[in-house]
Each structure stands twice: as structure tokens, then as C-alpha cells.
């Protein structure tokens, strides 16, 4: 195999280079719980994983005590996802990390 082909093959499969990060969360809507992203899927994602996790943490802190009386503020199951929408492990612990967790399927 030519060296350049080897390098190309390695580049494709060695480590998944992420293209960006978004915050994914569920917000109470009229019909139930809606999954939303920030930045929105129409917008460009963020390139800093740390900044995205920090914003997720602040969002969780800001909406921690919101209830059904404040539908705009009731935001749960906050996590950081990659550009494909797949959750990524929290960089500080290398484990899955969900903020304001709630089992919404039972509600």
C-alpha cells in the first residue's frame, strides 16, 4: 500500500475528529417534551468543547428550579453532543454526563 493511502486510511478511522459541539436538552412543550439544540441545527456549531460544557452547566443552573408554571424555563436532560447529535463524554471525567436529569417518558 502506498504511504499516502495508509495515511489517508488512518486519518479516516483512527480518531473521530469532531466538527463541532452543541447543547442538547429537552424543553416542556404543549404536546409534551421537545428535544432542542443550542446552537440550533441551522446555525454553526461551537468548536470549543470546554466552552460548550460550561454553557450547559450554566443553563442547568439557571433552569434547575423551574417548574411547570414556567414552561420556557423547564429544561431537563442537558448534555453536550457532537455535530452528528451523539452525546459525548464529559471531558473532565471521561464519563457520560447529563445535567438536570429527569425521566420524561413517564410524564
Amino acid at each position, binding site marked *: 500500500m502506498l504511504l499516502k493511502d495508509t495515511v489517508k486510511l488512518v486519518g479516516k478511522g483512527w480518531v473521530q475528529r*469532531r466538527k463541532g459541539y452543541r447543547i442538547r436538552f429537552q424543553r416542556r412543550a404543549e404536546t409534551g417534551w421537545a428535544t432542542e439544540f443550542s446552537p440550533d441545527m441551522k446555525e454553526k456549531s461551537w*468548536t*470549543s*468543547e470546554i466552552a460548550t460544557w460550561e454553557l450547559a452547566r450554566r443553563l442547568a443552573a439557571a433552569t434547575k428550579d423551574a417548574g411547570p408554571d414556567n414552561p420556557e424555563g423547564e429544561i431537563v436532560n442537558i448534555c453536550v453532543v457532537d455535530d452528528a447529535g451523539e452525546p459525548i463524554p464529559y*471531558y473532565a471525567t*471521561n464519563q457520560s454526563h447529563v445535567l438536570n436529569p429527569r425521566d420524561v417518558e413517564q410524564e
Partner: protein
Amino acid sequence: MEQEISKYYRLRDLFLEHGQEVVQALIILVLGILAIKYIVKYVRKFMTRLGAKPPIISTVSVALAILLFFGLAISCLEWAGMRVDVLMRFLAAACLGAIAIWILARPYIPSLPFKVGNTVEAGGLLGVVEGTTMIHTRLRTFDGKTVFVPNSKILKENVVNYHYTPNRQVRLVIGIHYGADLVKAKRILADLLAEDPRVLNTPPARVFVLNLAESCVEIAARPWVNNKDYWITRCDLLEKIKLRFDQEGVTIAFPQVDAHVYYHREPEETTD
């Protein structure tokens, strides 16, 4: 004495004949200058909102201001009753002369090695160039200070222009304990660089052992990033490296000294 009086009468007649127009022209000039100031201000704001680059905004605003001012000056002179065709010819000749001198002398005029909007290190300072004049350059440092650096100082010293090339290398050096798993540490660094979206594929990032130092093994990581991403990527990578090393049990070294203490015993006294 009679001459002085006749001069006075002539001036009086001149003022009576043209004074009204001169005063009106002066009022128009003052109002016109204020109007030009506001027009240029709004043009700058409009171009900034459109996303135009600072050097283009600066050039267009200055050119617009000069054109409007010349138009205003000519209108005021015409209003005051003066012949402007001679003035126009003089201005045209002066402009052509200035352009010719500029073209001939340009190779010999020292120019600053940066443009408005570039991040530079000049005059011992690091900041963004906000504006340049013939005498000084206005730099805005990253802690918010505005510094006016004389161009003569800049031209004499080394200048680092961080915008001359589109990307830059982040130079990271991590010292790990001599007892830590070196191969694992290199692998972790390489994986972290590979998964960061801001690290460029070309030129490729490199990880290598830099030095066997007194207190640690120094590993260097050299990713390339776009200029605008340099600082935040550097800080993010350092944070992630520390946390991932902690998770994987790779000890980051700190300066230390091993002390070996030997006790010397006095021989016991024997009594006969």
C-alpha cells in the same frame, strides 16, 4: 493717511458688495463640516454592520470625507463669488503631482509591516492595530489599553505580525514524571489533538519527546490552528491534557530533589 483711508473705503465697499455671500458661505461651510462628520460616522457603522474589514472601512471613510470636503469647499467658494475654475485646475495639477511623487518615491518610503486589524507585537507590546498615521500607530492591548506607539520605534525594532500567515503553531510542553507511562502519555496527547475540531490536518500535528530534563520527561505537542483560534485552543488543550492525564494515571511532574541521608556513627569507646 489718505492711502489708509482709501484702503478702508475699498474694503468697506468690498464687504458691502460681497459680505453677505461670504458670511453665508462660512455658515454653509460649518454646517457642511458637521454634516460630513455625521455622514462618515453612519457610513462606518453601516459598513461595520455589513461585516467589512477594518482597513476597508478606514480607507472608504477617509476617501469619502476628503471628497465631500472638497465638494463642500468648492461650493462655498462659488457661493462666496470666487472663480473656482482656476482652483479646480490647481487642485487637479496638485493631485496629479502628488500621485506622480507617490509612485516614484514609494519604493523608498518605509512602510509599516501590518494593516489595521492585524494582531502584532510591536514596540514591546502585544495588541490589535486600530489605526495608523504618519507619526504613530494606535494599538489596543488585550487588557483594554490603547497605546500610541511612534512609527520610528516600530521601524527600528522587530515586529511580529500574527496575521501575516493564516495559521499558527501552538507550542505545548508537558513534563511528566520519570516513572509515568511515556508511551501512554504520548498516545493521550495525540488523541486529544486529533479529536479537536480546531486543530488543522495540514500541517499535521506532532507529538514527541522534547527533553529528558532534571525533574521530568518533557513531551512536546505541536498542533497547527487558525490564528483566531490560537489562544482559546491552547488553553482548552492544556486543561484537557491535565484532566485526561489525571484520569489515566499519568503523573505530571514538578521540580523535586531526592535527598539521601547517611548517618555516621561514632565508634563506641572501650574501657579496659
